[in-house]
């Protein structure tokens, strides 16, 4: 037990420079609402933390597992809808809606995982994308999920911790708490037996099998955990936006953005998702607002796509890969 705790909180295997950088990062995030009063900047910060959270979860299957999953939005949707529907119909407190969302995402992923992992590489990616799109269409057509109109959450008059409704400062610390919990889980995971076995599967499936690793079983387990972690972020979206519809929480764009965050930052590294989200989210929100403000719609997408293409072509290990290479040379 004490060893598990130590694995969760210890970064002893990382260089001192990384540990210092992470402490600075935490201090900045904690101090942010006290120094920055701009509503838009606060919204960007919350969105950054949300996508860092999404990235951490996706990094499991996509980074440590090397399986390009382009369907994470379905799990975000499951989390978001579980929270929204339970709060709306049964007035369930927010905290009790997280687990059902995670469980549903896990169960659904388990059900589709075995046929899906008969596919590899691009074919697997396309399959994940299709499954996610099918779910989105179902949520559009189903009456009981609110259909295309979506679900509106009743607004509380005063700050409320049961339904997690408060001002932007509250949401900031709320998402930061979720982010830290998931980050510490990942810190444990990367040192666990499953973490090592997953990396072995990513690097060479035949060799992994020769060392007693059930290749498909390992992928399925990870795929399910990734799904559960995606659902947590979905639950947050419901509490934060107070309104969800399939186009907001389950679109293809969301799946791709989650995958991109990790790939740009550095797949298979604990820092990668944070770096990726820190670059892509502000870029998206500021560039988009600035260019669209001048009437130049769409240019931000072009710039955005160009950056992603450069990184994908020049540095498959993302920005963290560049950092590590420079450190090795220096």
């Amino acid at each position, binding site marked *: 037990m004490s*060893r598990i705790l130590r*694995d969760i909180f210890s970064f002893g295997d990382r260089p001192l420079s990384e540990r210092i950088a992470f402490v600075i990062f935490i201090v900045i995030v904690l101090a942010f609402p006290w120094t920055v009063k701009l509503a838009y900047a606060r919204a960007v910060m919350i969105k950054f933390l949300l996508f860092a959270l999404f990235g951490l979860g996706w990094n499991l299957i996509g980074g440590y597992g090397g399986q390009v999953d382009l369907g994470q939005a379905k799990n975000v949707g499951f989390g978001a809808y579980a929270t929204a529907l339970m709060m709306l119909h049964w007035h369930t407190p927010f905290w009790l809606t997280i687990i059902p969302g995670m469980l549903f995402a896990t169960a659904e992923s388990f059900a589709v995982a075995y046929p899906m992992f008969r596919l590899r590489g691009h074919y697997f990616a396309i399959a994940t994308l299709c499954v996610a799109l099918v779910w989105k269409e179902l949520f559009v057509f189903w009456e009981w999920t609110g259909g295309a109109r979506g679900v509106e959450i009743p607004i509380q008059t005063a700050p409320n911790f049961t339904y997690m409704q408060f001002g932007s400062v509250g949401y900031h610390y709320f998402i930061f708490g979720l982010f830290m919990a998931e980050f510490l889980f990942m810190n444990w995971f990367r*040192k*666990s*037996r499953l973490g*090592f*076995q997953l*990396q*072995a599967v*990513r*690097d*060479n499936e*035949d*060799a*992994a*099998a*020769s*060392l*007693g*690793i*059930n*290749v498909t079983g390992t992928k399925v387990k990870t795929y399910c955990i990734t799904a559960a972690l995606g659902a947590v972020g979905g639950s947050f979206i419901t509490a934060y936006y107070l309104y969800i519809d399939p186009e907001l929480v389950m679109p293809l764009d969301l799946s791709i953005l989650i995958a991109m965050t990790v790939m740009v930052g550095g797949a*298979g590294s604990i820092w990668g998702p944070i770096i990726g989200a820190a670059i892509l989210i502000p870029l998206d929100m500021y560039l988009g607002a600035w260019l669209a403000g001048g009437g130049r719609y769409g240019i931000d997408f072009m710039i955005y796509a160009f950056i992603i293409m450069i990184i994908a072509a020049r540095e498959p290990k993302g920005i963290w890969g560049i950092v590590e290479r420079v450190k090795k040379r220096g």
Partner: protein
Amino acid sequence: MLLEVHNLVKEFGGVVANADISLQLEQGEIVGLIGPNGAGKTTLFNCIAGYYRPTSGKVLFEGRDITGWPAHRVARIGIARTFQSMKIMPNLTVDENVMIGAFSRTGDRKIAKQEAQDILRLVDLVQEANTYPPELPIATQKKIELARALATKPKFLMLDEVAAGLNPSETKDIIQTLQLIKEVRGLTLFLTEHVMEFIMTISERVIVIAVGRKIAEGIPEEVAREDKVIEAYLGERYAKGR
């Protein structure tokens, strides 16, 4: 009997890669499997290790029928292997590669790390422990594969062309390592090889296959003199000409 193969047949479409092969290995033996290119050596290894499902025939390990078991289950009952074309985890360090082997038996990272260190010491790779395999020479990478296989604590180790591409001094080094681990661990070794000097030095017994069939079996010096074996390697003319 540790390993028994009975009338094993493996066909790919119409091509017969292994035709009716039977063989037995005793606990503690070192047995070489030789034959010209395309004879079916690697196919036979893959059938035993669970990478291919035999078309017919049986594989028994310690008397237990393991025919058609998936590779990871075969690995867990004590059969380890290395690969002809090396399969190293390039993004994991040398000691992490070996730890993966130890993780087949324990979930405890401390124990896995300790065992990996012991094995790295045994095969003389301690200095390379924290480097990434692609940075190291071929001979060292072959040793990493060997160390990784040993970390699963196998009873039976299959080595597919472990000396291929090595120079004479590296070959000598790997022979010494294999003899050492056989003594320390009491392993049963089954190896394929093209380098005749290597296989003839290390094997106590050799099995010869050609075009998917077993054509000879016995102690190395005798087998090397058999007409059928010379014919398989050099053609009919040489066999009759002696």
